[in-house]
């Protein structure tokens, strides 16, 4: 190389140097952290430290069970929900729907401001308005009715509401001058209330002491699934099985195996509606064997004479030997317990079935005994108004009066009867017939879409409230629900709305409802409770009492004396006991299958369908996600040439729907089953347009004694549409296919 650097070389060096320096500069820049900010609070929050979790105890309202929950919050945001360990209902456990409360709070489909209808009624077209405007409009309408003394033409239909909010609703309607306050709940066990009233003369559900029982005989009650208080029964079931040295035995009587049936030792596939007869046949057998210890054995022998196992065997589809064997086991196990509910209580003879179950308990000597049926003491809460539970018959009457000319205003609170009642009830037409409909809900749904004005509600994690669980746990217990986070949107709680309306309507309402807020109202009510109980409380003053309840999330008082059964009970049961045959809509020849819709823990009556976690939770027995399905026995499927995934047309006398077939071994061949919950038309992005709703095609059959909807009394025709879909499920096959999973040498699945 020559040591001369010519002009060309010089340019090369300059170029290389510049490019190198530029690359170095950029490389150094790239290795820097991006600018991040330290954003301080404007005002220092008193109740948390950043990075440290704060737990708040409150109460779950996802179903009526009233479990205590502990919510983990960080920086003022709810992050996780767990069961409250000191709460006697759930003892620290929580179900999937309870866990999914966060999906309720953070749901993107929440209504965020008051809405005013701006299109045709029922078109679902709304535009936002201010709270001032909304409340002024509504109080104007209600105030006018009151002045004209036509307030009885105002109706309040709510979902299930417990505790003092129920009192407040009742007081408000009373002050307004209306007697039309109802609570509607699809899963309301109307026949169970009626049966217990007839047998024991009690208005609240008794305490089923599954925990201490040694033999649990369930007639249709899916106590591990969606019956009454599933988390409490789940904990109790665990204790029954493994809590003591003697493992309790479980027998489940139901035409379609539920989660409880799958966990039982024995599944008794009785015909739908025959559960009560079966119970009486067992009672008959116990009395005949001389295992009944009561003094009136003669009376019972006579009363049960018509229900010999042999005569019931054919009607129930269960052999006489088997009935006698189970009866003997039931009578000799101590303590034993029979429970009834679900489909057994939702036949046309539902109440009679459940009375029969009570009779079996009485004959088995389980009433008033630990491990049997215990009675909850009458609630000791001041002004604890009984909930105006509307049976199906009440709802039909309500819709009839709504359709009359004089109905003026309907207030809907947190209820979706368009979805949870059969289409034959004509809910939509009845609601549309009312001139002015006010909706209160956190979410748009099929019923809210019919409203004229919608007030967005806080979720239960943002609002004050309280709850007395029903069924109770053998002693009086209550929980206060407190906001665990500041409200996310421009929403209010139902209590605050009612109080604001009362103040604006004026007249004597503000004087009789003087509270400034739901929180203030609750505190005043609890102050009265404290004053009447101050002897039992170690708290120094109300403030301490109040904050200790908020901190622990539960308040209860154990009864000094256990509530004993009434002496005349045996006689009451003798006279209440009678057995009607179940009847079904649709003649057996044409409508071959009895349809059994069933509630799932995840969706309840469909309210859980807008929660993404619940949508992606596989059904515990079929493992299906995201859709509806029709369960068929393999024999039925083979006979009709149906394979899994065939889209079926399901027709009842009241309507038709389509859903894919799922072959399910544990169902009677003359029964088909469908899960409740899917099939929403207008319930947010996660629920809408998914699956089909079996409630829709239910025939308007009624349990005569309670007026409840007999939702397992509809017969259907099944036919193939010719289309097929892929059923999305997490299981491969339910067959063992020689894998020897059961560990038997010649296992057959």
């Amino acid at each position: 190389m020559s040591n001369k650097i010519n002009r060309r070389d010089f340019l090369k060096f300059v170029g290389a140097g510049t490019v190198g320096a530029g690359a170095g500069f950029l490389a150094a820049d790239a290795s820097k952290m991006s600018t991040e900010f330290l954003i301080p609070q404007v005002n220092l929050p008193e109740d948390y430290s950043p990075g440290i979790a704060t737990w708040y105890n409150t109460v779950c309202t996802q179903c009526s069970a009233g479990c205590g929950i502990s919510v983990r919050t960080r920086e003022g945001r709810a992050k996780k929900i767990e069961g409250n360990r000191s709460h006697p209902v759930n003892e620290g456990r929580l179900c999937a729907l309870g866990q999914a409360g966060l999906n309720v709070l953070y749901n993107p489909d929440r209504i965020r401001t008051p809405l005013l209808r701006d299109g045709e009624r029922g078109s679902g077209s709304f535009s936002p308005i201010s709270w001032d405007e909304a409340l002024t409009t509504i109080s104007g309408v209600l105030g006018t009715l009151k002045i004209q003394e036509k307030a009885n033409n105002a109706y309040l239909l709510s979902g299930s509401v417990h505790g003092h909010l129920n009192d407040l609703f009742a007081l408000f309607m009373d002050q307004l001058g209306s007697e039309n306050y109802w609570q509607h709940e699809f899963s309301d066990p109307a026949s169970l209330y009626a049966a217990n009233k007839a047998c024991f003369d009690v208005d609240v559900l008794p305490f089923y002491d599954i925990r201490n029982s040694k033999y649990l005989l369930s007639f249709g009650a899916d106590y591990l699934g969606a019956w009454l208080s599933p988390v409490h029964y789940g904990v109790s079931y665990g204790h029954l099985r493994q809590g003591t040295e003697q493992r309790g035995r479980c027998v489940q009587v139901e035409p379609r195996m539920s989660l409880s049936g799958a966990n039982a030792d024995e599944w008794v596939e009785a015909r739908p509606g025959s559960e009560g007869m079966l119970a009486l046949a067992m009672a008959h057998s116990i009395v005949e064997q001389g295992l009944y210890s009561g003094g009136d054995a003669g009376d019972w022998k006579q009363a049960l004479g018509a229900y010999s196992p042999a005569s019931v065997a054919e009607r129930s589809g269960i052999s006489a030997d088997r009935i006698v064997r189970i009866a003997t086991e039931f009578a000799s196990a101590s303590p034993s317990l029979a429970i009834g509910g679900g489909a057994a209580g939702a036949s046309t003879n539902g109440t009679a079935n459940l009375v029969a179950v009570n009779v079996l308990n009485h004959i088995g000597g389980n009433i008033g005994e630990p491990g049997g049926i215990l009675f909850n003491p009458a609630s000791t809460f001041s002004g604890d108004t009984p909930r105006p539970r509307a049976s199906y018959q009440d709802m039909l009457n309500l819709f009839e009066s709504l359709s009359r000319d004089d109905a003026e205003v309907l207030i809907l609170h947190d209820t979706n009867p368009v979805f949870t009642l059969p289409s034959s009830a004509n809910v939509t037409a009845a609601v549309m017939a009312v001139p002015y409909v006010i909706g209160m809900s956190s979410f748009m749904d099929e019923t809210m879409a019919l409203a004229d004005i919608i007030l967005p509600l806080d979720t239960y994690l943002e609002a004050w409230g309280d709850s007395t669980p029903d069924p109770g746990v053998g002693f009086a217990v209550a929980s206060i629900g407190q906001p665990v986070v500041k409200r996310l949107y421009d929403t209010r709680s139902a209590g605050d709305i009612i109080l604001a309306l009362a103040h604006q309507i004026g007249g004597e309402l503000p004087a009789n409802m003087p509270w400034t807020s739901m929180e203030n109202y609750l505190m005043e009510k609890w102050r009265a409770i404290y004053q009447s109980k101050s002897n039992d409380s170690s708290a120094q003053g109300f403030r301490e009492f109040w904050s200790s309840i908020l901190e622990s999330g539960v308040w209860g008082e154990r009864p000094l004396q256990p509530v004993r059964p009434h002496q005349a009970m045996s006689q009451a049961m003798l006279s209440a006991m009678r057995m009607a045959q179940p009847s079904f809509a649709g003649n057996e020849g044409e409508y071959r299958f009895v349809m059994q819709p069933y509630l799932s823990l995840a969706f309840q009556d469909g309210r859980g369908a807008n929660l993404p976690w619940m949508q992606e939770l596989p059904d515990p027995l079929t493992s299906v996600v995201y859709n509806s399905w029709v369960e068929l026995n393999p024999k039925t499927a083979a006979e009709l040439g149906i394979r899994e995934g065939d889209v079926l047309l399901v027709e009842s006398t009241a309507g038709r729907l389509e859903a894919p077939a799922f072959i399910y071994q544990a169902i009677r061949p003359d029964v088909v089953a469908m899960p409740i919950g899917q099939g929403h038309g207008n319930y947010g992005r996660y629920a809408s347009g998914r699956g089909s709703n079996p409630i829709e095609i239910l025939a308007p059959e009624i349990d005569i004694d309670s007026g409840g909807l007999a939702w397992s009394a509809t017969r259907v025709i099944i036919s193939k549409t010719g289309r097929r879909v892929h059923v999305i499920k997490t299981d491969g096959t339910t067959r063992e296919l020689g894998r020897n999973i059961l560990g038997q040498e010649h296992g057959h699945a």
Partner: protein
Amino acid sequence: MMSISVLEALAHFKKPTLVVFVGLAGFVAGIWINSTYFGDASPVQPIEFSHRIHAGENEIPCQYCHVYAARTPSAGVPSVEKCMGCHKSIATDKPEIIKVAQYYAEQTPIPWIKVYDVPDFVHFTHKRHIKAGLECQDCHGPVDTMDRITRQQPLRMPWCVDCHTKKEVENGRDCLTCHK
């Protein structure tokens, strides 16, 4: 005539190699220029807050403002309310304090720029280090002499491990202590 010695030394390299050398030299120079004149160790803050005046002259303890340091992972920046607690009456006419008052009046947080930061995959907590008896100055330097905060440590892993080793921290060299 003397020739330039560098050129002579380089004489037996081929020209393309020289070009690479010059490029590399430029690269190093680029990095140096960036970190010397364009560094992020001492960013300009939205308000010219002086630690020298507060912590130095007025001897306000660190944790009077950084309230969470002993209790939580993050030391915490004082809330705007906290600033106003004193500055409602102190130095209210200074232009920088007027800015603070304005933030408070508008109820907006002051967007301070982070000087010390560790990546998200590092689990660092102030609480532990204060419990272990470290002084704030051990890592953050003589804050009480700085008007504007200048980063003293790049907070790289060798520096952390070095200290953990010297102080014989229990499980101080365990991966999961910081990366969890």
